[in-house]
C-alpha cells in the first residue's frame, strides 16, 4: 500500500495480489476520507479470494469516503474477466471506474465459474448451494469432490449469516482451473472468528491464533448449545475428504492453512502481516480424484 501526500487515500494493488495490501488498507480506512483511489491497473492475475477481497475493499471504502476511484486493470483480458465474474456489477453509487465495463456476449460458463455472489439470507445460501451442487456434480460426478464443494460453500456462508454480522454479507466467487482444480472463496467484513468465538465464556481467553485453531473443531461455537459448532468443522472435514486439497482461513491476527495430499494433512498457523477484517476463506480442490 502506498499513501501519497495528496487529498486521496491511495491503495496500489500489485500485478498478482496476495491480499496483503487489501488487509492493510482495510485497517487504515477507518476514518472518513474525501476520496479513496484504488490502483488496480497493473493487475495481471486474480483468484477468487482476491476478487472477493478487492470487491469487499471497494464496498468498505465506499462506506467511509465521499468518492472511490477504481483504476481498472489495463490488461484487457483481466478487465474482461472481472466483468465476466460480475466484479463490477451493482457497485455503490459513489464508485467511479477508470474504464467502461465491457459488454460481454456471455457464453455459458456455469460449469466453470461462479460469479461474485452476495449472500445475506438462508435463502441466498440455499440458492447458491443448489447451483454449486449442480455444477460440481456435472463436472466431477457424485462423489467426495462434489460433496466437498457443496459442503464447503454451505458451511462457510451459513456461518457468516449466522455469526459474522458482516455489513456486506458474504461475497462468494469460484473458478475452475485446468491445472490446479477448483478454487472458491468466501469473504466477509464481519466481527471475525476470534471475536465471535470469544462470546462464549468457555473461549473468552483465547488468543486470535488459538481461536481460529479451535473454531475448526467439532462442537466449538460462540453459543453454548450442544448441537451447534459444526459449520467450520464440517467445512474442514468436507475439504479433507478429497485426495488433494487446501484450505486457508484468515481472521483477525490469525491465518490457518491446511493441506491434504494422499491422506496426509499439513497445517500451518501464522500471524498475518496485517490484522484481517472479517473472515477470508479460500478452498482449493484437486481437479479430479
Amino acid at each position: 500500500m502506498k499513501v501519497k501526500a495528496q487529498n486521496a487515500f491511495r491503495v496500489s494493488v500489485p500485478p498478482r495480489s496476495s491480499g496483503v495490501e487489501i488487509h492493510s488498507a482495510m485497517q487504515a480506512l477507518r476514518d472518513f476520507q474525501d476520496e479513496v483511489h484504488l490502483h488496480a491497473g497493473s493487475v495481471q492475475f486474480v483468484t477468487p479470494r482476491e476478487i472477493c477481497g478487492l470487491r469487499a475493499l471497494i464496498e468498505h471504502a465506499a462506506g467511509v469516503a465521499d468518492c472511490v476511484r477504481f483504476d481498472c486493470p489495463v490488461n484487457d483480458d483481466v478487465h474482461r474477466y472481472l466483468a465476466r465474474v460480475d466484479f463490477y456489477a451493482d457497485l455503490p453509487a459513489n464508485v467511479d471506474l477508470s474504464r467502461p465495463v465491457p459488454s460481454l456476449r456471455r457464453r455459458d460458463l456455469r460449469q466453470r465459474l461462479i460469479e461474485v455472489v452476495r449472500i445475506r439470507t438462508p435463502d441466498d445460501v440455499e440458492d447458491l448451494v443448489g447451483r454449486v451442487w449442480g455444477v460440481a456434480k456435472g463436472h466431477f460426478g457424485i462423489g467426495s469432490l462434489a460433496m466437498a464443494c457443496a459442503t464447503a460453500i454451505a458451511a462457510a456462508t451459513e456461518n457468516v449469516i449466522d455469526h459474522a454480522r458482516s455489513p456486506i454479507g458474504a461475497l462468494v466467487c469460484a473458478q475452475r482451473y485446468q491445472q490446479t482444480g477448483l478454487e472458491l472463496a468466501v469473504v466477509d467484513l464481519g466481527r471475525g472468528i476470534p471475536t465471535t468465538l470469544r462470546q462464549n465464556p468457555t473461549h473468552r481467553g483465547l488468543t486470535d491464533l488459538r481461536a481460529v485453531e479451535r473454531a475448526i473443531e467439532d462442537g466449538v461455537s460462540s453459543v453454548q448449545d450442544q448441537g451447534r459448532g459444526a459449520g467450520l468443522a464440517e467445512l474442514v472435514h468436507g475439504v479433507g475428504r478429497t485426495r488433494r486439497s487446501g484450505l486457508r482461513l484468515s481472521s483477525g491476527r490469525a491465518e490457518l492453512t491446511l493441506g491434504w495430499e494422499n491422506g496426509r494433512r499439513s497445517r500451518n498457523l501464522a500471524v498475518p502481516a496485517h490484522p484481517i477484517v472479517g473472515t477470508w476463506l479460500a478452498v482449493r480442490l484437486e481437479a479430479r480424484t
Partner: protein
Amino acid sequence: MERYKVGASSMFLATRERGRRMREDVEGRLAQVAPGDALVLDFSGVEGITVSFGDELVAKLILGRESGDFADRGMVIEGAGEDVRETLESVLARRKLAAVAINASAQPEMLGEQGWLRETLDAALRLQSFSASQLAGQVGITPQAANNRLRVLVASGAVAKERGVPEGGGKEFSYRAVIPAHA
C-alpha cells in the same frame, strides 16, 4: 402409513433455517398420524445434507420426542443414501441421540447408535406390543434399565408409547413397535 418426502431428486439440502421450516412441516404431518402408527421421513433422491440442516430437522425432532412430543406414534427414516446417512450419524452422535432408519435391505437399523440399542430394538420387534417389565425379561436387564432404554427407543421413533390405567389405579405405559413392515 404416512410418508413425508424430504426432498425432490438430486437435491443437496442446506441451512438451519430450511431444516427448521421442514421440521415444522413434519410436526404438522405427525399431528395427523394416528397413535400407534408411524410417519416415514423419505430421503430418497436427496444426495446430500449439511450438519446444520440435519440437526435442525432430525435431531430436534428426536429431542422433541424425548420430551414427549408425538411419543405415541413412530417416525422412521427411509431412503437415505450413504452420504446422508453419514451426516445424520454425525448429527445424532453429537447430541447423543439415535434415530431408526430402514436400510437398503429393508432392515431396521439405528443411526447414531449406542451399543446396547440394537439389542433392545431386536427385543422390541420380537415382542411387538409390550410393557417395560416384559422387555426387561426379554433382554435380561432390570426394569429400571429397561425404562432407560425405552426412553431412547421411543425418542428414536422405533417404538410408540401409550399410557394406560391398570386395574389397581395409577399409571402404566405400554409400548408398541411401529417400524413399517416390521410392526
